[in-house]
């Protein structure tokens, strides 16, 4: 297949009976003025070469030496060089020279080679071998890699470090998994340094941490440790303080709360512990109720608001907890009707007559229905 067509200017000059030098000059002018597209003039040989689209395709898809190209095009090597320079200058197509400039590599051919590497589904991809013999700028390498990765998987995250790639995404998860498994072998903790080369690539670190969590490891300070270690400490602190604000606990220890939270189930299985999901607070009922008792000891009544502030809880949460404590007889107190105060029944005056009549439930029920009727009335206003 002919990739180029060649016009001998001498033959044409003879036919037209004009001097060949004049024809060369006219041709040169015509090319300058874009009247002859995709053509190049080789003055010393007095020829005009027209580049056909098939040549573009051919170069794009192949790695070929200049000798072979010279043979294919039936042009001497220097003319081929001139032709290639022209192509490069006009940016018809991207191709790259080998370092000895004796070979050219088409962009598509290069992309295919990168894709071949990517399709091995490794999260670390070393492309140095591919690029080691090619004259190419780092900028072009990045562009090419990005193009290739986009073809490989549009949703994958990419980090380029020279000719080395880091990938993070579903397609490379197995590779990350086996990498971690290899590191984890019979170890109780891993220092974060072991992942230092990935630390500036957040998506990959997220996947790594997720896999570590699946394996039962959780970030704790500078290490990944077995989650039992964290839970043990959490439990110890909870039993000591009675209340733990998980956001503070995890921030102090660089623990990711998202991984810690699902582990709480084991702690909350015990009846003595309550987890306030909305506020991310763990409460150890016996200890915390004792703290409340101590707090209200000197007073006959303490505003709920003050208790809430003191224990950094919302008013609603402290109300719920206090109600639970009252129900379970953990504290000898009660809430006032509109829940503004916690009344310390150890101090508050209780009628001397223990046998005084109990609350009249019928009366309360009648009052309840009056209140709901009134609510309806107000609503209907």
């Amino acid at each position: 297949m002919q990739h180029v067509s060649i016009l001998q200017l001498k033959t044409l000059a003879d036919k037209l009976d004009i001097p060949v030098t004049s024809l060369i000059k006219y041709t040169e002018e015509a090319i300058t003025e874009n009247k002859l597209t995709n053509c190049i003039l080789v003055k010393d040989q007095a020829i005009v070469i027209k580049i056909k689209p098939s040549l573009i395709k051919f170069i794009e898809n192949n790695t070929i030496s200049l000798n072979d190209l010279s043979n294919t095009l039936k042009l001497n090597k220097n003319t081929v060089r001139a032709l290639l320079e022209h192509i490069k200058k006009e940016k018809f197509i991207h191709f790259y020279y080998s370092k000895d400039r004796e070979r050219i590599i088409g962009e598509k051919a290069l992309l295919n080679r990168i894709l071949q590497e990517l399709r091995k589904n490794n999260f670390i991809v070393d492309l140095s071998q591919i690029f080691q013999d090619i004259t190419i700028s780092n900028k072009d390498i990045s562009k090419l890699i990005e193009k290739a990765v986009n073809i490989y998987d549009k949703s994958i995250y990419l980090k380029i470090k020279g000719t080395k790639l880091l990938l993070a995404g579903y397609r490379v998860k197995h590779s990350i998994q086996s990498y971690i498994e290899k590191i984890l072998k019979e170890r109780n903790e891993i220092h974060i340094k072991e992942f230092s080369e990935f630390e500036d690539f957040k998506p990959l670190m997220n996947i790594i941490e997720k896999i570590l969590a699946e394996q039962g490891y959780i970030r704790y300070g500078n290490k990944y440790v077995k989650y039992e270690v964290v839970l043990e400490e959490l439990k110890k602190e909870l039993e000591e303080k009675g209340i733990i604000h998980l956001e503070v606990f995890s921030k102090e220890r660089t623990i990711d709360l998202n991984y810690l939270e699902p582990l709480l189930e084991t702690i909350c299985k015990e009846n003595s512990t309550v987890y306030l999901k909305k506020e991310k607070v763990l409460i150890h009922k016996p200890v915390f109720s004792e703290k409340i008792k101590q707090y209200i000891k000197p007073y006959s009544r303490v505003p709920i608001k003050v208790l809430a502030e003191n224990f950094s809880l919302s008013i609603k949460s402290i109300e719920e907890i206090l109600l639970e404590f009252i129900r379970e007889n953990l504290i000898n107190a009660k809430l006032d009707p509109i829940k503004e105060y916690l009344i310390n029944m150890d101090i508050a005056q209780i009628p001397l007559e223990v046998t005084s009549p109990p609350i009249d439930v019928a009366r309360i029920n009648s009052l309840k229905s009056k209140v709901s009727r009134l609510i309806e009335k107000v609503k209907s206003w």
Partner: protein
Amino acid sequence: MSTHAFRTEKYVQRSSSGQCFPYIRGYKILKTIGEGAFSTVYLAEDLFLKKKVALKVMKSQTLSYSFEDREVFEREVKILSELNHPYIIEVYDYGESRGTYYIAMELAETDLNKLIKTKGRKIDSKILEYTFIQICRALAEAHKHKILHRDIKPSNILYISKYIAKLADFSVAKLVSEEQFTTYITRSIRTSLTLVGTPGYIAPEIASHADKYKQKYSEKTDIYSLGVTLYEAFTGTLPTHEYHSIRLFRRNIPKILDEILKAMLSLDPDDRPTAEKILKDLGLNTEILKNTNAHEIKYMIETKKSEIKELVLNKLQKIEDYLNQVELLINEDQESIKKIEKIVRKIDKIFNDLFGTTQLADEIDFPSNIFILDYLTYKQKVLENILRGIFSEI
């Protein structure tokens, strides 16, 4: 025969049937409806507009009007024309006809004095609360214009409908300068340095001979007179030297109103609030009438309703929550339950009043309906006090 009767008869015209009707320029006098020191008020018909009016005809001490008579007349007209207010009686027309000075005014259905005489303590509390607000607004307006009424009493509070009370009779009112306003020493026009007002309603500093108070007229004297008037309306009796709460007579009257009334009746004028302060204490916007129109009032009434609903529903829901925890209640709660029962009764009563009041919004035109917004605002304050008070006690 009084001089005045003689003067009126000068204009008696005889109808074809022989019935006698006195006429004063375009007004047919139908009957006498009130008699004061300086004037007589007739029910009259405006012959041009064919509507009933109250025609106030000035009395003179002699056969013809003196310079002082004319001054009394001109003063009242001037004052009333300065006060264009929904709770001050409206002047339609005034003038002089064949030597008789007259003022045609809005006709009232009744006055507070008649209500007290006929109903005693049975006047609807809600109507009296409306009156309280309306007349305080009227007085605040008069005082804003540096006008002292000087004769506030039940017969000068007129009802142009069941719900709308208006302040009337500015015949002894006085327009005073800024510096004179708070310490004005009265000088009657007719007799210099003499007492103005009606016994029983005059402030002690005016009635007393004590040098401390002697003849010092001020806005606070109007406040005292209004205090006596309202006290009488609520209780059926005039206040005594020692204040007895109106809540002894009417249990449902809010504490705040009682406290204000008590302050209005303070012997020392300095202890009495101004009309503007009373409005503020009731939670009312003293500037409400400025740049307000009917639509705005309607919107404000709706907004106020929502605020009150939110306030009350919030607390009621808390009470409901409390009652739902029956198993947690102990003997000590008996007291709380009593208090809740009390508060529920109070809220229920207030809401009955509020229902009635907001229904009036469709009946009463702007700007007279401003008292509806005022009433809601004041009741909101009352509700806040009740809810706050009860809850802090429990």
